[in-house]
């Protein structure tokens, strides 16, 4: 009987292989089609954005006009359709990479696609945000004009050529970024306006490449599929269109968080703590993983590393900006009072019939965030993955923030890709999907 079954298996096997081969070919063709769609959508956005200023493309020095030869000014309709195509293709690529044991997407293919998308966006103009012009303005204030960016806003250099590009809401606002980041932008100040924009874009590109490489490495160390981790972060439309497209310093922050995670996995915990502290001095939220790491490792090394780095950073900040450079809390409190229409608290307020966010809501949200953090700290103390706990906290910060921007949803993404708790990844992608859905009112009812 057993020999008969074996004989049957042998006779069926060649056919089964053919079927497998056919299925694999079809899946590869699908992956190729999705890759092409992602490339096409990205190229469309970049070419149209290169034509010039639009509601989605900030007024900017002309750094990529030569790309706009075949484009039309980027409007909501084209952008949102491209964004939806990118999102759908991203979901399909992740499903193909995660759902099949076959090599549907080869490693070379994955790396080449991610690199191509990043380089296309890098070659284009600044997208969807004026933040990069604020970064450059703060650098020019400090380096060229001797004005402290932790006391004054860009309006103090209104004669400077960068001033007209700074977002109107931010012209009177002192910097909320960490002193290490402001020092990192100093070289940009002497590059001229176009040179500074390219410099900031290069910083963002390098930070993104570093984040992707470390996400790969961390996933492999944890026994997760590194290629899937790379695709989760690198193909994410919010990551490369909004994050890299706007040259946001959030990418430098995520790089330093991933450096810390990789160093912890390599057993270099003091350096890991130091990396998080430096990250916190770039953008305050980078410090979030530190308590979870300390609770998880239960050794003094990360804390000592963080304290030493903090002292060094504080000394640098004091020397460069005085005590104002260290006043992160007041900057965070100021920013916590901002309200954006895309924030989830605003949406919930509308759902319950309120016109918007009231002061008491800010207190309730802060209270909820504290409870979530305390719960996650307890879970980490009881053995839960500290990387996941850090990711949940960053996600909770984004969700409870009344000032939500697309790049805030990116903080969690590399951690989620390297986390053992796949619920974090699902939640992060769901939040991003809701953010994208919420953008679509101009597509459903255009105003022109």
């Amino acid at each position, binding site marked *: 009987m057993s020999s008969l079954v074996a004989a049957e298996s042998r006779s069926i096997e060649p056919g089964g292989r053919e079927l497998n081969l056919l299925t694999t070919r079809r899946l590869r063709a699908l992956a190729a089609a999705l890759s092409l769609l992602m490339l096409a959508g990205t190229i469309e956005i970049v070419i149209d954005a290169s034509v010039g200023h639009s509601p989605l493309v900030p007024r900017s020095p002309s750094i990529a006009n030569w790309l706009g030869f075949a484009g039309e000014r980027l409007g909501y309709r084209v952008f949102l359709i491209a964004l939806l195509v990118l999102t759908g293709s991203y979901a399909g690529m992740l499903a193909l990479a995660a759902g099949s044991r076959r090599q549907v997407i080869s490693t070379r293919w994955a790396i080449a696609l991610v690199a191509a998308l990043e380089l296309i966006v890098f070659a284009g103009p600044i997208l969807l945000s004026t933040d990069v012009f604020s970064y450059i303005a703060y650098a020019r204030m400090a380096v060229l004009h001797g004005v402290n960016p932790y006391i004054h806003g860009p309006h103090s250099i209104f004669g400077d050529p960068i001033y007209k590009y700074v977002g109107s809401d931010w012209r009177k606002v002192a910097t909320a970024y960490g002193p290490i980041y402001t020092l990192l932008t100093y070289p940009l100040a002497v590059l001229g306006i176009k040179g500074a924009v390219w410099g900031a874009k290069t910083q963002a590109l390098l930070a993104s490449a570093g984040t992707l490489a470390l996400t790969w490495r961390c996933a492999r160390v944890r026994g997760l599929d590194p290629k899937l981790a790379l695709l989760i972060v690198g193909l994410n439309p919010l990551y490369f269109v909004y994050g890299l497209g706007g040259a946001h310093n959030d990418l430098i922050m995520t790089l330093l968080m991933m450096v810390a995670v990789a160093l912890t996995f390599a057993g270099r915990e003091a350096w890991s703590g130091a990396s998080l502290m430096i990250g916190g001095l770039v953008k305050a939220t980078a410090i979030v993983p530190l308590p979870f790491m300390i609770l998880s490792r239960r050794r003094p090394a990360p804390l000592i590393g963080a304290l030493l780095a903090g002292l060094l950073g504080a000394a640098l900040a004091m020397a460069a900006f005085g005590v104002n450079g260290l006043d992160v809390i007041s900057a965070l409190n100021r920013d916590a009072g901002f309200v954006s229409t895309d924030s989830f608290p*605003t949406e919930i307020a509308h759902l319950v019939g309120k016109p918007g966010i009231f002061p008491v809501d800010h207190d309730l949200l802060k209270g909820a965030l504290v409870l979530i953090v305390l719960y996650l700290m307890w879970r980490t103390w009881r*053995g839960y993955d500290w990387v996941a706990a850090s990711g949940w906290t960053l996600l909770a910060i984004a969700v409870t923030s009344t000032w939500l921007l697309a790049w805030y949803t990116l903080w969690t993404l590399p951690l989620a890709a390297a986390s053992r708790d796949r619920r974090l990844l699902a939640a992060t992608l*769901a939040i991003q999907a809701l953010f994208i859905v919420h953008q679509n*009112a101009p597509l459903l009812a*255009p105003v*022109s």
Partner: protein
Amino acid sequence: MSGPMDARANNAGRRGVGARVPGWARPLSNERGGSGSLRLAENTIVILFGLLLAVATVNDLVGQTHVNHRLAADLRTWRTVTGHDYRNLDIEQDIKTYTSRDVVCGNVSPGAPGERTQLCLVFEGSVVAGKRAISGGYYLPPKVTDAAENRYSCFGTAASSGLCGRSSPPAGAPPAPAFKTGLGPPPK
């Protein structure tokens, strides 16, 4: 998840830091097996919260779509009643008292945005056949902000609610006719 690692962690917890603390607060190196009920509770909370966010997002999207529909009707009505098919019109929503009252301003003659005398029309009510009723309006001199001290020749609700700070048009200003309120045709 349960295994030798957990046993070591638990023993370490009992002998060391966690010797005098209750079981729920003892440190563990790895999550204990059998924490299924905790994960179930977490999953339930996360899913319910996710559903709340999804409903809120869709509700807001629908609401914003209605607002856009209204704003498009405002612009269409301004262009129809003025006879000017200008693309660059300023539109201001009521973000203080959250009514559906919008104000649309545009040049009375061709020119860059805000470079000519501005006609501002106030719209209220629901969208009817792609248009909205004019409830009032006023004029602004060129290159000024839309503030009470700059407004003149108010009509309709703009006049009754005292939106105009100027009693007369500035010297050399073009004619400033009052527009018929409601959904009527433009004045001759």
